Every structure is written in C-alpha cells, then in structure tokens.
C-alpha cells in the first residue's frame, strides 16, 4: 500500500503541493479532498490526483495515459499482493523483466507515475534479492537502478546496490 513517501515523491515530481492527505487507521489507505470538496480514497486515486494538481503536465497521449493507469493497477493488484498468499514474487519479476527488455521507462521516454509507483512498490522486494537474482532480472534491475538515481523519486528510500558487470552468467 502506498506509504507517505511515495506520495511525497509524486507530489515533488509533478511539482504539486503536498498536503491534506490522510491515512485510514485500519489499513493506511490514503484519502484526499478534491477541489469540489469530496473525499476520494485509494492509493492510485490519491497519486493521480496529486500528479494532476501539479505544474508539470504529463503530456501523455490517451494510449500512454491508459498504459500508465494499467501499470498503476498492476502495482496494486499484483506487486503489492505477491509473496505469502498468492502471486509468486518470481512471476511478477519475470513479467516486468520481460516487459522492460526493450524499454527505459514503463511508458514513453520519460518517467511517469507508473515508474514512481512501481519503483516504490518494488523497493522492498528488490532489497531482498541477492546479486544473483538481481542479475537474473537484469532489465528490472537496470530500470530500478536508473529510477533510484533520481532523489526526487527515491526520497528517503535506501539506495540499493546493483552490480553492473554480470557475475553469474
């Protein structure tokens, strides 16, 4: 689930004011008040809200916008829910690795909300990988290492080590 850290990252990246976000006591789901005074709840919802309130326009085509949304959903339904009770971590990493084979960012040629969200969602998973596994998911590793260099996106998350030379193949 969305930690505050990643919402701050989203706000900073899109140069939006960060504020008014509250987290539910039960499961820490964030909520925020919209312009017309309504509360909306949900991590992608809040993140999207922040990104649209920012000065930086995403400038995406409809197709790219849809792709971003799809990866946000993937983060919430797959990445956040892999591990103990269902989707194997390896499946998620394999899928992302395959997808990123020929890509620098998830959508288009610059970081989007999808990159921010997946980076934050994957951090805990990647931090537990051995160097050998990181090498196995080399495209995920490459993408991750690239994203984490941007301190706006990384915020206070730890910089994870990657080896740039292949040690195991």
């Amino acid at each position, binding site marked *: *689930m969305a930690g505050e850290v990643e919402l701050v990252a989203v706000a900073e990246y899109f140069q939006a004011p960060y504020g008014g976000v509250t987290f539910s006591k039960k499961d*820490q789901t964030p909520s925020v008040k*919209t312009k017309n005074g309504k509360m909306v709840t949900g991590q992608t919802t809040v993140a999207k809200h922040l990104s649209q309130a920012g000065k930086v326009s995403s400038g995406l085509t409809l197709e790219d916008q849809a792709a971003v949304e799809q990866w946000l*959903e993937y983060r919430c339904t797959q990445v956040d829910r892999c591990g103990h009770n*269902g989707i*194997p971590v390896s499946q998620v990493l394999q899928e992302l690795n395959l*997808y990123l084979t020929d890509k620098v960012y998830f959508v288009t040629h610059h970081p989007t909300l999808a990159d921010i969200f997946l980076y934050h969602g994957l951090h805990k998973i990647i931090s537990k990988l051995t160097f050998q596994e990181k090498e196995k998911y080399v495209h995920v590793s490459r993408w991750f290492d690239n994203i984490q260099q941007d301190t706006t996106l990384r915020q206070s998350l730890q910089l994870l*080590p990657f080896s740039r030379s292949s*040690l195991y193949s």
Partner: protein
Amino acid sequence: MKLYTDSGNFQTIKVLAAAKFAGINVDKTDVSHGAHVVPYLKESRLPVLEVFPGKFLFSANTVVSYLLAKGSQQALLAGDEVQQWLEWESTQFAPVAVPYLVSVFGHGKAEKDLLNSFTPLLSHLEKKLKSHGFLADKEVSAADIAVFGAMYPLLQDKPFQGAIEKLTAIKTWISAMQSLPAIQSAVEDVTQNKGGAVFKESLLSQPVPVGPSPATGGAKDAAASKNVKSQSAKPSSSTSATPKSSTSENPEVPMERVPAEEAEAAVKSWSADSKTLPTPVQRKHPILPVKDKRNILITSALPYVNNVPHLGNIIGCVLSADVFSRYCRLRKYNLLYICGTDEYGTATETKALEEGVTPKQICDKYNKLHTEIYEWFNIDFDYFGRTTTKQQTEIAQDIFWKLYEKGFILKDSIEQLHCAGCDKFLADRFVEGTCPLCGFDDARGDQCDSCGRLINAIDLRNPRCKLCQKTPSPRVTQHLFVDLPKLEPQLKAHLDKVYASGIWTSNARTITNSWIRDGLKPRCISRDLKWGTPVPLEGYTDKVFYVWFDAPIGYISITANYTDKWKEWWKNPKQARDPKNCLTVCMVDDTHQDYLVEMYNFLGKDNVPFHSVIFPSCLLGADDNYTVVGHMVATEYLNYEDTKFSKSRGSGVFGDQAKDTGIPADIYRFYLLYVRPESQDTSFSWDDLLLKNNSELLNNLGNFINRALMFLSNNFDGVIQPIELEDEDKQLLALINRELTLYITNMENGSLRDSIRNILSISRLGNQFMQANKPWVLVKGSPAEKKRAGSVVSLSANVSCLLSVLLQPYMPQTSATIQTQLNAPSTVNVISDVIYCRLPPGHTIGKPSPLFQKIETSTIAELKTKFAGKPAPPKADDKNKGKPAAAVANGPVSPAGGDVSAGSGKINEAEVARLTEEVTKQGNAVRELKTAKAEKAVVDAEVAKLLDLKKQLALAQGLDPAAAAPSSGKKKGKKK
C-alpha cells in the same frame, strides 16, 4: 483496435459496454480459454485490447476508461471520483467477487464464507448510491460501467440475490444499469442468453485476483518493517526457489560437441610420455633475472602503515598480485614478487600523535600487524619489506641527485598553510577542509576522498588544522619541485610503447590519459616534516621528501633489502629476445631489442597517477636505465554490503578480524577474487559469500572431486585404473583444453576473476561426465562395465589433479589438500596449455575427505550483525534516556541497547518527538565539545552517536525501511 477475449468472459461485458458508449467499433477476436495474448505476461489475462500492434491493455478497467476517453465521452470520466471506483473495483471488489464466482460457476458450490465478505463492500456501495443514484455522480459514468460489469455474473446467483435483497439503492441502480441499451447489448454479446453457466470455462482459466494480505495491512514503511523479520528468518519461497537451479540443472545439459580433430589433438597430448611432461622450477632465493626467460617483477601497492587493511585493500593489491604471481610461477616464468609497508608521511605522524608514541613505534607495530594478516591470507611474497630503511634513503637521494643534475628539479617559494597554534607548516594530511573541486567538506590536504582528485592544501576552502582545529594561515616557504612538464615527452613515449605491449586495465589508462590531457604541472616533492627521507640538498636539509615521491622508490629499496644484486632487477639492460619466449605481444622494435625485465604494478585505482605518471617520470628523468612500469593492473573499489568499509564506523571486515570469523582464508580468497572489482566497483556481501561457498565450492567443485576420489577409494582400493578413452572421454578432454586455454588467456590479461569461472566450468564438465556415465551403476555390472567404471573415475581423478593446480593461485591450502588426497607428486604443479595424464594407472591416491564446509545462514546472520558497524538502527540510546547525552562521552559508543524491545512495531508521534529532542541535544553537545577542543576520539564518538540518533529519527518517521532489517540480529550478536 483488436479486442481479444475468450467466450463467456464476464470482464468483457464492461469493455463492450464502454465501447458502445464511446461509439467505438472494436474488432472482437475470439481466442480459446486461457490463451496467452500479451507476450510478457506469464498468466493468461483476458480480455486484452491491442490498441495498436504490440501495445496491449490487459486491465479491463483501464480499457473501459481508455475507450470512453477515446470516444470523447469526458462526461463519463469525472476525474478522481471515477478513478476511486475503478481502483476500488480492482483492489477490493474483484478479490472477493472472482473467487466467489469461481466457487459458484466453476465448482458448482457456493462458498458461504465468501458471501459474508461481500457485506462491507455492499454496504459501502449502498451508502454511495443512496446519495447520488450513481457511483461518481448523478449520471452514469465509467465507474458504474466497471462495477456493474463485475456485478453482472453475481446477479445470476441466488444466494447473492439474497444478499442484496434489502439494499434498495443497489437494486435501483442495477435496474437502471440494466435498462441501458449499451449494457444490454454487451451482456447479450457475452452470455448469448445462456445464463450463468456460460462463465464457467472462462472463470476457471483466468487468474484469481488476490486480496490485500492482512500482514501488509500497515502500509507505512515503519510498520511494514515488522514483517521483515519473519521474512528473513525463513527465506521466502521466491528467493529460495530461484538460485539453486544453476547447479542442479546443469548435469542434465548435454555436453557440447567438439570437432574430431580437436578431440584427437587432446588425446595425443593426453597420452604423451610421462617423462616428457613439464616439471616445475624450484624457487631459490635470491631470485634474479635470467636471460632468455620471461622475467617478471611484480609489485603490489605498498600498504600504508597507519591502519589495518580491510578486505577491499587486500583484494585491491596484495591478493591480486599474489594470484598473478602464483600463476606465473606455475607457468614457469622467472618472477619476483615484492611488497612492504609504506611508512613515511604525514599520516604516520598524525597517527603517532594520536596514539602518543613515536612514528617509529607506530611503524613497527603496524608492520607486524600487516605481516601477520598477509600470512594468514597466504600471500606468498618473495619478500615483504618496509620503506624506512637505509637503502631507501640512499636510493631516493640518488634518484633525486640524478634528477637535480639533469635539471629536472625546480626551486620555488610557495605559500603554505601555517598553523600558529601548533607552530608548524601543515603538510597534506595535517590539514582538512572543503574540496575546491567538488565541495566535499572533509577533503584531505593532498587528495579529496569524494572526487578522488589531487589537490593542493592551499586551495582548500575553510581549511582547518587536523591537530588543533584552528584555521591556519598561508605563509611563504621554499620548496623543491620535479619538473613534470619537461619530462612529459619522455613519459609519453614510454607510455605509448607500454600501452601497446603491456596489460593496462582500462581505468589505469583512463586515469593516466586524463592526467596527461589536463597537462602536467611541476609537482612539489618536499615537505616540512620530520618523519621521512631527508632531502640532501643544501638549504633544504630540514625538509623530507613527499611520501609519493619516495614511496614507489620503496619498491627498489625493498628489493635492495632482499638482495644486494637488486640492480639486476632494476637497472634494466636491454636484450635481444626471441619473441617466442614472450607470451604477450612483445614490445619489439626493429632490432628485436627488448628489456630483460617486465614490471607489473598491481594497485587500486586511487594510486594510478603516482605509478603511471610521477614515478615513471622520475625514473626516466634520472636516466639511469631503471626498469619502468610495463603493465598496470588497477582495481576499482570493493564496497561492504551496500556501504563502504569504515574503520571508524566499524563496518566491514578488516584483515585482523577475518581469522576470528571461522571462515577459512581460502574461502575469503575465493570469494574476494570472485567479486574482484575489475571493471567497476563491486560489493562484498555475506549472503553472496554463503551462496558461492555452498553452490560453487561445495556443490560443484567439492562435490566432483570428492565423489570421484571416494569412488576410486571404495571400489578400486584407491588405485588409478587403466584409462581407455572412449569417444565421450575424448570430447571431455577437448572441452577441458578449451577452458584451460581461456584460463591462461584470462590470467595473462589480468582478468583474474574470469579464470575462476574457467575452473568452475571444468569441474562442471567433470560432474556432467560422472553423471552421464554413472560409474556407481557400472561397477555392479559385467567385468567390461566394471572396467569402464574404473576408467571413468581414473580420468576424473586426473581432472581433479588438473583442478588442484589451476586452483592453486586462488586457494593454495585447498589445492594442497587435494594434492595430498590424490597423493600427487609435487611435479604436477605446472600449468600447461593442455591436460596431461598426471596420475598414471597404478598410482595410489591418499585418503579422500570433504574439501569444503557448508556455511549456515545462522553463521552468516551473526557475521552480518557483527560487522554491520555502529550506526545500525536499533534504538541504541534508549538506555541513556533521560541522561544528558554528553554524560556518556567516553570511548567507543556501545552499539546497541540490547534491552530495548526491538519489535515495537509502529512508532508513535511521541517517539518521534523524543528522538527529535535527543538529536538537538546531542547536536549541541557535539558543538560544545568541538568549541572546548575536546580530544578527537571523544568528539568522534559523540558525532557517531549523533548520526545514529538521526538515523533512528528517520526510521521513526518511517523514512528508512531497509534499516530495520539488522535490528533483530543485533540482539543476538550482543548475547553471544
């Protein structure tokens, strides 16, 4: 736009409905149940919209909002509200609805428990619908389409109908939705009016969405860190499943085929007469250059005495040079490997002041320490000396005079920082400040640790005296300079020659070239110090030589301490050489004139300019036929886990601690070389060490050798049987020869890391060979089969013998153990270009025993904790709670409270407030100590505590999740 879907897929309802609303015609393409459409997804996801060839949308909700946007139905996409419902549907509703649908239509048995899970979801829906009539607004929106689409199949189920019986708003909404033509046509298209059963196959072939796990409910990182412990205790299924495969799969892989000629050639050399096989050369001291042989002088950067070397220092120079020199000896080159401690310089003097002893005492102490460490690591120097000797003074002064006479020494007055408090000029490391080049605020007077560039102390911003912390002021003083610009043409000519002929790692070249490209400047070689080689020139006799002028001269003086015939190594005569004797491309000029001695420098990248620019310039300028560097093998840095080795923080393994870890020196050697930072920085990781030991050494190498020898011992009384080569044996020999060739090439190129892989490949080939032939089956069969079994294991014993030799540079002790177990004669210790039969039939082997020990995760966990260093995150200061921070000022701070409940879970505001206060208090304490000019050690300890507190604060604010990991282990470590 193509829409791929299987028949009866309920998710397709919402997609088709959205298409209708948007007025977009999607090209619906039927695929079979469970069809894989999206190439990068492991599971079938349907429906999928292919927006344009190769671009897929596999989330039904995304497709809905995309289609509506595409059809300019902005009204249906009312911003955040819609988004919120789409998210709710996919993360909350679907994980309940889909499993329920699977139970109802897939298995024909409704699960009542699941039905109960609908209650909170439905009441949430009911509440929203009551106020608006529709989900996001008073009109139909994408949210309604998405949620209704997921709801539709449920409406076909009686128990579910019961569940919504009393929810009037939902029921009104459902009938409103059902009356919409777009919905009607979509439903009809998917269900073909066949009722709920139509969903069955599709439901069973699609992945079931997973709900939020209760364990990750606490979303904040601080809270989530609670789970870290349980996960690291038992490796999660995904991490344990993947790494093992590499070794266990391989025996099944069929061996590669080699051409027949290659195999025959391998057989021919294999069957060579044992009397003609090459034998090793005895090592007799003193080793001197020999004509018509390859004479190699190997130096490894002289370790500085003021500190204990860490694993990164060890792999950086002495260990790398050791592997290479052991290899060279096995190749029968004539070589001399020298090293020693570098003892002069400001760092020694400051260290001596710190410890309250004379510089000489410091040097004696650390020289002994270094010697012991290298002995433990089995670094096989021909001579390990030191720079504080009579010879050093003589040779350094001689080189100085030669340079002086030839006009390469300049005199100049410079401004130097002078500390009024200490009444001395502050050379190099006596002064610290902000780097003028990169702004790093803890740069030393001679070099910046952050950007690695050399700086002049006078250029430092905000300089401060290292001893008294006062601000020094510039004063004019006379100094000597070596005129590098004048020497540049000679240096360039030399470098051009050795670049072409020698092994220069790319970092060595790059650093050297950038120095030359930036233009060489006169370099000051004298210092206002006592501890150093005295400058012999009149008027400068109260000064000593700059450590980087005379440290590389240490190579020469250490050789002179080793043998009085040192000039044979260092005053390099030219000789006509037969190019055949020379493995690397010789630096042959027209007359085939060549130098007798080739010098290899092994060093870390930070030492490159001193060895490739300053030292060669001085030697060339002295014009006394000195041996000048021909090859330079520089390493990058080795990090410790994800941080740096740091003595002050206590993070990382230092040379003197290694032997207390219970892990044998050979394992360290193997691992350090496996991760040797050749082309970029690498990391020492305990987990990785465990993996390498258990997978490569234990399961691959150790397994092969032990299996072969045990079998030979148990079934053939340890006697090598006649080896009759069959076709696949010949293939094996040829494949081994290929690896052997690569091993040699890699070694010659200074790629020490790659050669390890060749060794492991050979033992992998051996394992495959054993696995394919199954001697344990053959031995129970007919006499012919038994004979074959003997042949197979005897060949394997010979491969083991080869492995023992190839392994020797890396793991000398293990190599010796294998040779004892093989009862192999010492004459096998030669690395030839091809594999020979070194253990002939009739040879009796010794007693086999396992070569490697398994390393347990618990051991690694303890070691990780032990070497994690001070600022590890557990709440170290809870025990000092309430006490003024300055009251615990003495000595190194004890790293962990130990009495703190580590799993306190979520951290409350009070804790944050308390820590904030602590940080402020500690910050003031440090400032006070600094103004009061307290002892450095005291200040450092307090600063460390401050940093620790800051880290805890970050943790408490939920900002640093990963830092929580070592906390559980910390306590364990303390108990021991």
